[in-house]
C-alpha cells in the first residue's frame, strides 16, 4: 500500500467499471477511519502532515471512484487510452445534432415544467451512454471507443449543468 497505488488498489476494489456505490462509500469510510488527521489529533505536526497526505489521497480516489464518468475516464487513462478532452473535440455528427436540438429546446423553454422535461430526457441519455461505456470497458475492453464515450458524456454533463443553472434562475 503506497500513496502512489492506483485508486482501485487503494480501495481494495477490482479494476473495472461496474461498482456498487454503497461498497465504495463503505470502503472510503473504513480507510478514512484509519488515516484521517482527526484520528491522530494527539500526534505532532510531522505525523499530522503524513495523516493529511493519506487522507487527501483517499479523498482524491473517492471523488474519482464514486463518479461513474470520472471512473470511466480513469480506467481509460490507466489502460493508455487518453481522454484529451481539451484537444480532442471531434464528435459524431448525429451526437452533435442532438446537442444542438437540446440547446434549442433549452433556449425556447418558457417555464419550469418544460425545463424539467428536458432534464429528464438528458438524464435518460446520460444513463444510456454510461451503460454503453461500461460495456466497452468491462465487456469488449475497447478502451479507445470507451474514451470516445467519455468525451460525449462530458458534453452531456456540461449541458446538464446549464439546465441546473436555468432551473435555479427560474427559482425551482
Amino acid at each position: 500500500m503506497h500513496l502512489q497505488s492506483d485508486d482501485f488498489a487503494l480501495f481494495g476494489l477490482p479494476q473495472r467499471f461496474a461498482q456498487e456505490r454503497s461498497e465504495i462509500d463503505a470502503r472510503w469510510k473504513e480507510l478514512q477511519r484509519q488515516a484521517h488527521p482527526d484520528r491522530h489529533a494527539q500526534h505532532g505536526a510531522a505525523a499530522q502532515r503524513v495523516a493529511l497526505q493519506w487522507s487527501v489521497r483517499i479523498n482524491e480516489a473517492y471523488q474519482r471512484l464514486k463518479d461513474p464518468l470520472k471512473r470511466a475516464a480513469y480506467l481509460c487513462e490507466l489502460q493508455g487510452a487518453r481522454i484529451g478532452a481539451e484537444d480532442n473535440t471531434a464528435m459524431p455528427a448525429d451526437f452533435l445534432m442532438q446537442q444542438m436540438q437540446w440547446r434549442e429546446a433549452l433556449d425556447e423553454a418558457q417555464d419550469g415544467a418544460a425545463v424539467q422535461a428536458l432534464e429528464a430526457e438528458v438524464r435518460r441519455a446520460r444513463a444510456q451512454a454510461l451503460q454503453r461505456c461500461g460495456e466497452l470497458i468491462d465487456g469488449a475492453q475497447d478502451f479507445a471507443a470507451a474514451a470516445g464515450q467519455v468525451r460525449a458524456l462530458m458534453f452531456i454533463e456540461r449541458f446538464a449543468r446549464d439546465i441546473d443553472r436555468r432551473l435555479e434562475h427560474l427559482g425551482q
Partner: protein
Amino acid sequence: MALLQISEPGQSPDPHQRRIAVGIDLGTTHSLVAAVRHGVAECLPDAQGRLLLPSVVRYLADGGRQIGDAALAAQQADAANTIVSAKRLMGRGLADIADAAKLPYALVDAAQGGMVGIVTADGTKSPVQVSAEILATLRQRAEDSYDDDLYGAVITVPAYFDDAQRQATKDAAQLAGIRLLRLLNEPTAAAIAYGLDNASEGVYAVYDLVLAQVGVQVQSAADKAAARAAARACKEALTATESVAFSAVLAGAEVHFDVRRQDFEAATAALTVRSMAAVRRTLRDAGLQPEEVQGVVMVGGSTRMPQVRRAVGALFGREPLTNLNPDEVVALGAAIQANQLAGNNATGDLLLLDVIPLSLGIETMGGLVERIVARNETIPTAKAQDFTTYKDGQTAMAIHVVQGERDLVQDCRSLARFELRGIPPMAAGAARIRVTFTIDADGLLSVSAREQASGVEAHIDVKPSYGLTDEQIARMLQESFATAAQDIQARALVEARVEAERMLLATQSALDADGDLLGEDERTHIAALMQALRLQMTAADAVAPEAATQTLAKGTEAFAAERMNRGIRQALAGQNVQNL
C-alpha cells in the same frame, strides 16, 4: 508538540487523563458553550444559571467593558459603544457592509488588513477583538464549571463563511487564549447532535434560519435599539399566541399597537418562499429527492415560527425534528466533536467527514474564475494546477485566489493574492509551475508552488485580503495579557513541565515500538536530546524546558512521520485483507 505515541484509534494514551474540551456556538445574537459530561453533551450555565450569553460587548471610556446581559441592558442608553452583531463584521471590509450607515456605531476602514474597525469610547476595536471578548467569557465559564484549565474548543461558524471570515474566527480564538481544535460548520454540528441523539443512519437535512433584521423606520440610534428589542419580543411571543401588543418608547413618546400572527406571517411570507427555493436548490446540488431525506433538523430560534415549520414540513412531507432545543443544538454538536478531538472518547466511533462549503478558484485572463476545488467536495483535499510564464526571462508571477460560485472574479470573494518568486529565467511558456492548493480538515487553504523542470520551490507571499497580520494579533495579545502577566508566567511553567514529561514518555514508547526504523546515529542523537530535556525539568521558568521540548520535537519529526506512515500503511492493508 510532536507526540509520537501511536495508540489504537480513539484510545487516549492515558485513559485517566481527561481533557476539558468544549463546543462553542459563537452566534450573531447569542453564544453558548457546551461540554460532554458523563457521556452526555450539555450546555454549561453561568453563575446565575443562564445558558445563553447575548453576543453583545459594551466598551467603556475608562477601558472597562461589559459582556452579555449587562451590555444588552445598556444597549438603549449607550448604543454607540455597545456592539451587538460583531459576527456580521468578521473578515469584512467597510465596503462589504451594505447597511453600515444604519448601524448605531461608527465603522472605519482599518489601516492594515482591510478589516473594518468599530469606533468606541475605548478606541477602535476590530470585530475579532469583540468576538474574542465573548469567547473569553465563555472560556471562563467553562473553566469555572470544571475548576480546571480548558484544553481546547471547537467553535462553530456558518457554512457560508468564507476563508477570511473563518480566519477571523480563528484569530479571535487565539486572542481569547483558546486552543482551537476545529472550526465546524453550524449545520454539521447540528447534524452531529441529532445523529448521535437519534442513533439512526441515513440522510438528514438541516434547516437553519437566521432572521437578522426586523424592519423598523426610526430616527436615532437609541430608538432603533428600543424598536428592535420590542419587535423581537413581538416575534417571539407570536410563536405561542395569535396576537401580541407592541410597545416601546420612541423619541420620548410611548408607542403601542397590536400585532397579529397573520400580519407577521404575511410580512415574512416572501422570505419563507425564498428560503424554500434555497432548500430545493440544496437538494438538487446533493442529487436528492425530498422523500430520500430521513429527517429534517431545525436550527436557530427563528425556526420556532409556525409558518416556517409548516413550509418545511410540506416540502419534505414529514414533520421537522424538534426534540433538541434549536438554540442549543449547534453547541451540543460542537461539544461532541471537541470531546472526540481531545481524545476523550475511548470508543472513537465518531469521525466527521466534512465538505468544503464554497468553491475555490483563481483569476484567469479577462477577470474569469477558473474553479480549482468545487463546493461540497470532501476535505481534506489537495488540487494541483500547472502554470507557465508568458514573457521571456519572467521570474515572478501573481496569482489571485477567490471563493464563490460565480463566473466573474468581481462577483466572487477575494481571498488572497500570491506572488511566486524565484522562478528560474526561461523562454516564455517553458516554465512548468505546479501550484498545489491544500484544504485541511478545518477548511482552511494553504498554497505551495514548485517549478517542475528545475525543482525550484517558488517563494510564496500570502496576503489575506481581509485578515489580520501576525503583528496585529501579537499586539492585541499583549494588550489583553498585560494585566495578568504573573498568572500567565506561573501557568506557563506548569504547562511547560507537563508538556516536557508527555514528550519524554511519548518518545520513549515510540522508540520501544518502532526503534527499528532508526539508524544507530539517529538513535544516539535522540537519546542525547532526551537527556538534555531531562536536565531542564527543574528550571525556574518556562523558557528552558520549552526550548528543550521544542528541540526534541524537531529532532524526532522525521521519526514521527516515518512511524505514522508505517502505522497507516499497515492499517489500510489490514482493512483490505479483512474485506477480501
